[in-house]
């Protein structure tokens, strides 16, 4: 397609803090948002990505390049994704899932969402509040009511809060 339409094969992406990144079109079109722009012929200049900061965009581009270099082998792609996400903290993961949503990259979104879910698994309510900095905005009555519902699921169940 690039040869036919004369579209450059390298795209320039701009983060919301004005950092510029060059990325091969073949890797960038993993993002459906970018792919649509390319197909519409409006990806010639700099593509501004207003919802993604430079640090997150750098990670996403690393992922794009890494995953697009792997031929159609789902096993290898999965192990690449696992390795890629293994050393990321929650803040980075959270920024990445929002960026992946904005860029419409379902494979990255699924992987990161599952990774975040893995952190939340088997944890107590208090642990989740502390870890993710969430304020308990229930009134005491509401909290009692919500605890009463499905109380059976918590009776005699250990949580995994130490990890």
């Amino acid at each position, binding site marked *: 397609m690039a040869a036919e339409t004369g579209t450059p094969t390298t795209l320039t992406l701009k983060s919301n803090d004005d950092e510029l990144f060059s990325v091969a079109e073949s890797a960038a079109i993993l993002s459906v*948002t970018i792919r*649509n*722009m390319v*197909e*519409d012929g*409006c990806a010639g200049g700099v593509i501004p990505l*207003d*919802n993604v900061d430079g640090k997150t965009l750098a990670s996403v581009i690393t992922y794009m390049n890494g995953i697009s270099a792997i031929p159609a082998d789902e096993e290898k792609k999965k192990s690449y994704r696992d390795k890629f996400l293994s050393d990321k903290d*929650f803040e980075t*993961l*959270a*920024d990445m*899932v*929002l960026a992946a*949503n*904005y860029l*419409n990259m*379902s494979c990255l*979104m699924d992987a*990161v*969402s*599952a990774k*975040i*879910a*893995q952190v*939340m*698994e*088997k*944890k*107590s*309510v208090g642990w*989740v*509040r502390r870890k*993710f*900095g*969430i*304020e*308990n*905005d*229930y009134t005491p009555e*509401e*909290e009692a009511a*919500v*605890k009463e519902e*499905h109380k*059976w*699921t*918590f*009776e*005699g*169940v250990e949580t995994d809060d130490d990890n």
Partner: protein
Amino acid sequence: MALNYSHRPSFPAHVSEDNLFSPMMNVSACLAEGVSETIDEGYARPWSTSWGEMEEWYFNCTSDRVHNNGSPEFNIDDVVNRLPIDPFRMGMGNTFTALTGWLEDLRFDYGGFTRGNIGISVPEDYGFSAGCSLIWKHYSAFQPFCGNNRFGDNLNVGIGSFLRNPQCYEKFYMDINSFMDGVQFRAELNTVSNPNQHGREGFRPACNREGILDFSDTSSELHFGEKVDVANESEAAPHEAMFFALRYLGVKDLLSVERVCRSLCSAVRGDPLLWMSIHIHEPLNEKITDDLLLQLARRAQGKLKCLSVMRCPKVTNDGIRRILETNTRLIKVS
């Protein structure tokens, strides 16, 4: 008198020119009654393909509709009778009354394919079949628009602002669904109220342009406002990313997460997609009973697709049967 159409295809692959108006006739006939019950009935029935049958059905609707269900030919087990009242959630009872007069007019003007009095001229080649498919297959009709992105700029405007509101991935599709209900009818109504604006272009431009713009303007307020506000209100609110992770949590963790704060609670309880698959594992399998399982299944709001209750000694066949009654889409039970 009453007809059983259940063996006929819902949407015939080929509709001859003579029959182009059949679906519209049907609805128009029902609408003429002005009774929402009749509309629902007519809608749930597959469209007929021939004029003869249409006329008979029309006669049924207008003159003797009570007999439709009373007739022995309408078996109680007929699959038609088990279809949901309003399968596409179009809110037909309200929306269609506004269109009644227009549809009737179209029916009478069928011979010429024109609507002289309001200035719309429908080209013969795609005229009414396009109109029908836009109205009736509103969701599937929109899919190719998204897929091949034929509308370039407009679509990008819509999707762009959409994606600026960081929300669940499934929500995106859900909201296209619910949004489309509104847009299609808004677009059609625009055609009715501002006919001269669109002239010969008929249905499509009305839907494409205004529909997409409406999409970008309203969807963020209507469907996304609440969560975004919650996220911006306080630093101590859960990160938006956590809402994406919910669909990867099991039953036990979902029930735990809803205790954390209000916004997570409403996200967990309000999203039937999270409950479409219910797998009961240890340690819940020993504790869960029929009533508790039914309580969980209710959260799927009838959308439960997959239920796994292996090694659950307190769950009986009767309990499963009760869940099956309200979840007609359940396809896998183990």
